[in-house]
């Protein structure tokens, strides 16, 4: 991806951005986040199919954001996360420049976030077949089978909160689990405590999750917790016509339509 390296070098030399966030080669053939402030390091930037980590998790981090204007190499999921973060006033045109990488690995430098939004709206959020098959398999179970399935899947969780840390949408300075008056979610990892934590995480992402799988990829125990947020995504589509991260549209869970349909309220 020489075009990305060249552009990053130019931006830093002209100091129109203070830091360029991209990928570099990591350990054991993996790629990892790279923060370039000195134009000479631009050569380290790489881009290929291994780069799936969602870099948007960094643009709300104090130590990165306080460096000044950021440029970010953004694949489609990262762009969706950026648009959603922009609609939640976390980033704007003065502190973020998006170097888009299209699904065909072509680089587009977007002038501003509205351009990113129009690009993102060309693609529908699709749940891949493997996860869809898992969702259907769970759907066919009876409620207590589903209950046993989730208790068994979530019990190994040792509450390291890597799912929360890797998610670009989880940027709260102090998360609900870090308040102890009241202590909604028990601190120790226990069967019910884990379940309540993952339910709370899924609900706080309702209408905001961009289905980038960062939470699943971050989990040290590969717990399929992204199925919960995918379920919320499908529910939003089924009941409210779905959502796309967008700058102007209202957020799914903080707005309503007088004629929202439901069949269970007596």
């Amino acid at each position, binding site marked *: 991806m020489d075009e990305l390296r060249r552009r990053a070098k130019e931006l830093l030399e002209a100091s129109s951005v203070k830091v360029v966030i991209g990928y570099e080669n990591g350990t054991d053939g993996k790629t990892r986040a790279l923060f370039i402030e000195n134009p000479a390091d631009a050569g380290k930037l790489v881009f290929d199919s291994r780069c799936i980590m969602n870099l948007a998790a960094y643009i709300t981090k104090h130590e990165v954001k306080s460096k000044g204007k950021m440029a970010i190499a953004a694949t489609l999921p990262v762009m969706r996360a950026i648009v959603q973060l922009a609609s939640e006033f976390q980033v704007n045109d003065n502190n973020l420049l998006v170097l888009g990488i299209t699904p065909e690995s072509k680089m587009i430098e977007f002038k501003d976030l509205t351009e990113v939004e129009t690009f993102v709206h060309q693609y529908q959020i699709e749940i891949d077949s493997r996860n869809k098959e898992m969702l259907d398999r*769970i*759907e066919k*179970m009876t*409620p*207590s*089978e*589903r*209950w*046993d*399935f*989730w*208790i068994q899947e979530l*019990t*190994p969780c*040792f509450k390291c909160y890597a799912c929360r840390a890797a998610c670009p949408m989880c940027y709260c300075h102090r998360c609900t689990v870090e308040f102890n008056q009241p202590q*909604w979610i028990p601190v120790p*990892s*226990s*069967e*019910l405590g884990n*379940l*309540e934590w993952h*339910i*709370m995480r*899924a*609900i706080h992402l*309702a*209408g905001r999750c961009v289905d980038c799988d960062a939470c699943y990829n971050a989990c040290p125990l590969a717990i399929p917790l992204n199925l*919960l947020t995918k*379920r*919320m995504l499908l*529910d*939003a589509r089924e*009941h*409210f016509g779905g959502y796309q991260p967008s700058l102007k549209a209202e957020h*799914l*869970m*903080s*707005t*309503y339509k*007088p004629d*929202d349909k*439901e069949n*269970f*309220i*007596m």
Partner: protein
Amino acid sequence: MADFEPKIVAFVCNWCTYAGADLTGTSRIKYASNVRIVRFPCTGRIDYMLLMKSFDEGADGIIVSGCHPNDCHYTSGNFHARRRWIMVRSLCDFIGIDIRRIKFSWVSAAEGAKWADIVNTTVSEIRELGPYNDYKKVAKRPLKEVSHG
């Protein structure tokens, strides 16, 4: 499970359903005493974590009730709540929480009879379903000492 007395928690909005329940009392309509009513300023304030905590503490059924659409004292509390309950209810169903034990209703301040009817039907339904063993089984399971299970 005829002799089982279910524990029901009712999260109700103060302006309509609570007043409706009041009306049920003043008009001497009898309804099952298994219900424990918790008053909230609005259905919009009823947090989904309260459902979890109620089952944690041993509830067998939950009623959530508030003002009819367009009657909300704060104009949009029940609209927000409705959207939230649609999403929360389907997630609870996906997780395997028994959603037959969570009842949602609109009860205005004038519908004392409807409130009594809702409580009675809920109690009899939950009595049929029996205690919520799935949840209690996990809650009571001794703390996984050495979590190698």
